[in-house]
């Protein structure tokens, strides 16, 4: 029984990184911009966060630094894609590659560093409940913040005026422009907020999840987060679900290996990715449903006044 509680706890931990990045990319894509540079942003934010944590010893400053790094990179991307109308996919890929190399270069000095021992967290009373306590209530505060943020995002998108404008910009930028909204500025803000969140996810990896720095340590989580937003049909609650599913299957395959299950470890390692592909295929079967949920102007450039 105890192992299942621990498995659940590990799932929440593993899924949080993907959830934060996924929610950021969701905001991004809701405004109609696809930012394939998620991996690069997360890497630069990871080194920024780690360096800050090493220099100042504060986790929260590290998250802030990561968010700033992500926002700056996303800002550069945004200017290129929104004002110069470069192809979003190509620019996003370029950002990813740049982030990869830049983070490795900046991080050379930090590969030998390590952080002070990570504190243990436990919600005061709830953490001691027999099964549910260790399973759900002994996580880093960021895990709970993510869930709260998801709730806030749902409210923002569907119940607030600003969220309505954001969605409108994503569905039909021409109409929004005709109504007088500053479409390009709104898109830039969305892109930067999305980048900041990817940055927080990146900093979380290097400061909380695996407290060290090595090149390429994000190891593809940025790409998974991108797939997640499609997987989740651009709904915040489903992004969280997908993130925990992926994190859960990842931890499950290690658990199965540890139990000595007679399935090849290489097959088990493939499991999370196979699960993601399977769900994506199932979702894509219905083109009408996809069109109904996808922001209509996703990936298309916008030329005001043309």
């Amino acid at each position, binding site marked *: 029984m105890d192992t299942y509680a621990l498995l659940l706890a590990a799932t929440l931990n593993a899924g949080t990184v993907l959830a934060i990045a996924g929610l950021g990319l969701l905001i991004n894509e809701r405004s109609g911009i696809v930012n394939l540079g998620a991996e690069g942003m997360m890497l630069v934010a990871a080194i920024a966060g780690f360096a800050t944590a090493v220099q100042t010893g504060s986790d929260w400053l590290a998250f802030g630094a990561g968010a700033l790094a992500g926002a700056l990179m996303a800002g550069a991307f945004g200017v290129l894609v929104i004002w110069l109308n470069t192809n979003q996919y190509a620019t996003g890929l370029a950002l990813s590659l740049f982030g990869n190399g830049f983070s490795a270069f900046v991080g*050379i000095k930090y590969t030998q560093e390590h952080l002070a021992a990570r504190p243990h967290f436990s919600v005061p009373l709830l953490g001691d409940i027999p099964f549910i306590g260790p399973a759900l209530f002994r996580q880093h505060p960021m895990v709970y913040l993510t869930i709260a943020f998801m709730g806030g995002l749902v409210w923002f998108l569907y119940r607030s005026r600003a969220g309505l404008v954001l969605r409108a910009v994503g569905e039909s930028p021409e109409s929004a422009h005709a109504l007088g909204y500053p479409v390009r500025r709104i898109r830039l803000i969305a892109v930067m907020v999305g980048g900041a969140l990817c940055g927080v996810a990146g900093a979380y990896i290097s400061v909380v999840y695996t407290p060290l720095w090595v090149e390429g340590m994000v190891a593809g989580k940025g790409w998974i987060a991108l797939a997640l937003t499609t997987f989740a049909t651009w709904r915040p609650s489903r992004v969280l679900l997908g993130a925990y599913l992926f994190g859960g299957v990842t931890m499950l395959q290690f658990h199965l*290996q540890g139990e000595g299950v007679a399935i090849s470890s290489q097959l088990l390692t493939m499991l999370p990715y196979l699960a993601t592909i399977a769900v994506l295929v199932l979702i894509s079967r219905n083109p009408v449903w996809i069109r109904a949920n996808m922001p209509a102007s996703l990936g298309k450039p916008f030329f005001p006044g043309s």
Partner: protein
Amino acid sequence: MTTSTRRSVLRTTAWSSLAIAAALAGCTKKEEAAPVAASEPAAASAAAAPASGASAPLKIAFAYLGPVGDGGWTFAHDNGRKALEKELGSQVQTTFVESVPESADAERVFRDMVAQGNTLIFGTSFGYMEPMLKVAADNKGVHFEHATGYKTADNMRTYDNRTYEGAYMAGVIAGGMTKSNTIGVVGSIPIPEVIRNIDSYTLGAQSVNPKVKVKVVWVNEWFNPPKETEGAQSLIDGGADVLLQNTDSSAVLQTAEKNGKYAFGWDSDMTAYGPKAHLASSVNIWGPYYIKAAKDAINGTWTTGKVWWGVKEGAIDLVSISDKVPADLKAKVDKVKAGLKDGSFSIWKGPIADNTGKEVLKKDVVADDGFLGGIKFFVKGVEGQVPGGK
């Protein structure tokens, strides 16, 4: 921005970036390696070399699998390189390339090294075997040294460390320190070397604690800190309280530290990464072999072959044993070390059975290097099967 201004901005940017790229491409790989290294000894010896007079320094190149800062496998190799420079000073000139992938790209790196005049080239990972063989066949005048491989050529030899001796000694400590009688190993890739290490860890633990069980998870990579963390976490969640790793970063030790369990450093001294969790580090000391190889090349006595050094030759050691380890356990480890040094103790001595019950080594038979090199089974006490079958 009108179309024509945008186009001219883009055109200027494109041309200037092309110009910058061409300028950078003009620099050789060696220049690229030197700033990456940030190692003053290399720059100093490169500057001092012309002053030595007698003959040109031997140019040596190293290909590393990971970054020098991994604190593990590559870090140990780089320490060996630094020891080599310190010992031979102006007689040698060393350079290295980090993070060389185990693929066709490796061949390009080796050819590049030859083109830059290196006559002694070290490839520090198993996966460089085929690329090195190819480049060796085309460059008979260059000496190639391949770590942890098994194929040789007239101008290519293999060298390796008996890491299983370190794993055994770690196992002795693990068997004595475990409270749950379950210990774990985060395995990298299921090749005989790693399987042998897992088995030796188990044998060592069983020598002090016959009840101990060993769980294994496979990361299927040499170096992936997030995956290593997840693997270690799942072992701990499964009840293991002393972990060994065969991967190249300090993530496993850090995870053990986070969970209040024990772990060992691997390849390099990892005490700093997990002060509370660290019991000991099984380290690779490559310095002595690198010095010998360089001297062979300088004196013209280089021959091909297979070199496999261990505790006896000073290539493997269990260091920084924590104060948490009780004195009698430490004494046992010292006894094993002394026995390995003078050859009186053999780890792989029968009777040994695999975990299906089949006897693989008869009573009092000492395994030879051929047997050790082809181990593809788990000994009794290890849970699960070797991936890929037997």
